């Protein structure tokens, strides 16, 4: 699967630097895959807590963690969900832990090691502005 880097508009004109983003659909919310910033430095995979109820995910608060993102204190709640990465043509699904965070004032979710990178071979071609994501062999046979 190939994902073109995504650029957002700059409020002062022009566009911001395009970023490596993958679109990840939650089971129950296939009509609106969530854009997630590929973050090789992040241990967790995180999304806005606003997304969870839209996918029918109940956040029980059994396992939570507090952390800071950009100086903003936020609380993440863990849920195991089925995710699907799709570029519109191909798609691969896997079961993963996702931390749903509140507040989450950021544009994208974060696709980190646990929940995303552990499952894929990722090639980043920043010069040409795209990344390729292929599932690990064990996932392709799943």
């Amino acid at each position: 699967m190939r994902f073109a880097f995504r650029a957002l508009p700059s409020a002062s004109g022009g566009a911001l630097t395009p970023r490596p983003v993958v679109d990840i659909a939650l089971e129950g919310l296939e009509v609106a895959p969530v854009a997630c910033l590929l973050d090789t430095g992040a241990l967790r995979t995180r999304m806005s807590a606003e997304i969870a109820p839209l996918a029918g995910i109940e956040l029980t608060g059994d396992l939570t963690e507090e952390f800071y993102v950009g100086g903003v204190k936020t609380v993440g709640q863990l849920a195991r969900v089925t995710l699907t990465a799709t570029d519109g043509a191909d798609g691969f699904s896997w079961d993963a832990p996702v931390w749903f965070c509140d507040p989450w004032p950021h544009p994208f979710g974060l696709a980190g090691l646990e929940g995303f990178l552990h499952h894929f071979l990722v090639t980043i071609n920043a010069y040409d502005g795209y990344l390729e994501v292929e599932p690990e062999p064990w996932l392709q046979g799943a």
Partner: protein
Amino acid sequence: MPTMTISGHQYNLESRSVEAALQGALPEPIHEHFVVINGRRWPPKQVLALVTGLDRADFTTHQARRALTRLGFPAGRAVRARARHPETSRAAAPPSGASGADGPAVPLAEALRPFIGLWVAVRDDDVLVAAPSPAEVVAWLAKHRQRAQSMFRVVGSEQAITSAAPQ
């Protein structure tokens, strides 16, 4: 203030009252014709129905389009978008396009400009819907039987993106 006769009724319409009537509403999918109001593309019939309270069956798309262009709103035809996706509207360009011109191909970043601060659902380079919350975006997709390629919040600064990395 132009006086218009629509479906046998006379209306005194002005651009500000049209803009006010759209507050809180979301544009429906663009099938072909659109007008640009407050930086967003709207189906002409949806706008005129909201402004006048008339049933959409009481007037045609061309009547609605003509009434709105008389008020100064740019209008266009989503020919290319329609050819690729029958029910997809291309994102609104800044409202400087010539009336009646086909919608120009707008790179996604530029198409997203009117929606800084909002959640959007996109497909290719088309903005399907923009709203203050993901719940409203998903409700719109469900209501109009649309499927997005991606959903995210539009921000307008580098800092807003780079700060997403956990500290």
